[in-house]
């Protein structure tokens, strides 16, 4: 079951390269700040599936993401991402058999900055009920939240994420064409950004699935950034379906564009809890 909920906290990345490129990079970022100031934010890296958490049950997830190769300089007051370890706690409560609400606590750990609280988000989500008999899974997520300016110049952001997925035999496909908007911060006047995510998975066995996850931020709708400035990341991932109670996802990702952190390791460990007496006649 693919019932998790990824998102990219912010989209645009400042770039990181070698020392000789740094001055140019800083100048580039400063230039961009006038038009687009999304910050690096690999706090929850996950392509959402359409399923929601059942009522009377809770999914508790820990997202651990380590940027092995990222931005090394403080840019415009935003901490560098290089060697940041992001730990995100996600708590999702099922409301009905077609709705849930999620809550996030973002943290960051890094040499020189210690363990820091980054921000919180809240995310209600509804899905198309099974009784509608759609030929694919579909849901809609809305996410709003705050993050500290030292981790993102845009402190209040909003995201709407349509989610579509489909399992066919051993294959699994998910698409999240997300739209993002800044509510407070330098990008407040920039309108909607387009940040799609895609997953293709294959069941090697009942327990072990492998696949590719793709995350991107193309920039403002109607005026996409050049490829060089876009965020583009590809992860090789594995999902371990050891039990309906557990969700395990591990991956390693590369960012080939200049605006992307270049090497990230991610892990998701989730545990499903049910509450109240489970009656056999319900």
């Amino acid at each position, binding site marked *: 079951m693919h019932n998790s909920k990824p998102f990219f906290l912010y989209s645009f990345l400042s770039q990181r390269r070698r020392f000789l490129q740094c001055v140019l990079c800083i100048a580039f970022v400063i230039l961009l700040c006038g038009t687009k100031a999304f910050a690096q934010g690999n706090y929850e890296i996950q392509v959402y599936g359409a399923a929601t958490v059942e009522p009377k049950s809770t999914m508790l997830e820990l997202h651990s993401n380590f940027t092995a190769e990222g931005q090394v300089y403080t840019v415009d007051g935003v901490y560098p991402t290089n060697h940041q370890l992001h730990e995100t706690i996600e708590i999702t409560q099922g409301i009905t058999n077609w709705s849930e609400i999620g809550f996030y606590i973002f943290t960051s750990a890094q040499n020189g900055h210690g363990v820091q609280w980054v921000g919180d988000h809240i995310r209600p989500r509804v899905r198309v009920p099974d009784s509608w008999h759609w030929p694919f899974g579909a849901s809609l997520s809305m996410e709003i939240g705050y993050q500290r300016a030292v981790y993102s110049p845009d402190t209040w952001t909003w995201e709407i994420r349509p989610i579509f997925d489909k399992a066919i035999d051993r294959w699994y496909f998910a698409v999240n064409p997300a739209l993002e908007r800044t509510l407070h911060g330098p990008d407040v006047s920039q309108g909607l950004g387009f940040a799609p995510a895609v997953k293709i998975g294959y069941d090697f066995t009942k327990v072990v*699935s492998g696949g590719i996850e793709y995350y991107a931020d193309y920039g403002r709708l109607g005026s996409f950034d050049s490829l060089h400035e876009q965020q583009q990341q590809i992860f090789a991932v594995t999902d371990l379906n050891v039990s309906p109670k557990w969700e395990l996802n591990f991956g390693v990702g590369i960012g080939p564009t200049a605006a992307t952190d270049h090497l990230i390791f991610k892990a998701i460990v989730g545990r499903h809890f049910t509450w109240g007496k489970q009656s056999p006649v319900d």
Partner: protein
Amino acid sequence: MGALTKADYSLDIAPYSLEVSPHHVIRTIAYNGQVPGPLLRFQEDRLVTVAVANHTDNNEVVHWHGLFLPSDVDGATEEGTPPIPPRGQAHYTFRPRPSGFRWYHTHTFAGGDLKKGLYTGQFGFLLIEPRENRARYDQEVFLALHDWKASLLGNPDGSMDPVYEVSTINGRMLGHGEPLRVKTGQRVLLHILNSSATEVHWITLAGHQFRVIGLDGNPVPQPKSVSMLRLSPAERVSTLVEMNNPGVWTMGEVRKHIMAAGMGIVVEYANNNGKPRWQQPESLEWNYLDFAAVDPAPSFESSVTEIPLVFESKFAGHGAMDRWTINGKSFPDTDVVTLHRGQRYRLLFKNRSTNDHPVHLHRHIFELRRFSGLPETHGIFKDTVLVESGKQVDVEFTANDPGLTLFHCHQQNHMDEGFMMLFRYA
């Protein structure tokens, strides 16, 4: 199957729109434009011919479930019964036996099309009248439990299974069919059939008890009153109900979501009216052994030949239904086991999967002999038994009806995905 014999009964297989409620019309395939099909009453061992006309675009075949019939009329193409081609006809001529509550139904492949095979309305009651009536009753009622509008949904164990939007008794959702009208003091004989393609059902009648007198149409050695019945797909229960609690009551599925999907019927005493009363049970209760013979079961005899049958699933992806195996092989590659006429056999059903399986043996009746961890039992004769996940059930039968004999799980999706095998006679 004779082609020229004059028919005693006829069945027309044709598309049909079933109104299960004013808000739900189900387009399906049915016998004679009704769901369930017509009640057929045959005299035991008296030759009968049924003419069947197939007005659909697919091959069809009618299986006479629970009867001792030759393979060419039993109604399974795997045994050699010829299929009825689209727009074609066939005559089934046979001597029906044994007596008891049987049924007839389609025995075709559905695969991923959840509007074919047992997902349709192709089922009906079949009563083989005994030479003497054993049961004393004032009214005899036939009830069929069925599920409709299936779709595939991922389940927690990783594969996909059918789930249903609508559930009915005798083709009607609760509150939308004629009530079962009774009188105070009556003994009502209920013949209940689970014709669902895949679902087990638990049934209760608020304010009353069921006195179970027969399982799969065969008398039980120890009739007993219970508050709830469990019927897996293809199982039947014959039960007497003493109508001694006047009022208007609901009989229906114990599980709330299936009752909400429509599986219920109103039981109305004469001169009573008002809203039907329902008493919600809080647990699911059923034990075959409640009805077993009380005298000690004979111990296992060495002359009985054991045949172990191990049921396992083979993962085919989270977006697919599992494949099923018997002793490691899926039909049509399953081993054909040779039987010797007159020999007693003990089938050891070992369910190593995470699903329960209602397994059915064609053309024979078997005796329940042992359930996992329990002592030997005897006296209950059936043609279908539910083997629970992780458990073993042993049954015995005597090979006394030569011909190819099909054995399979009666869940449509399981038999379609390989859970079948054949026995042949030497």
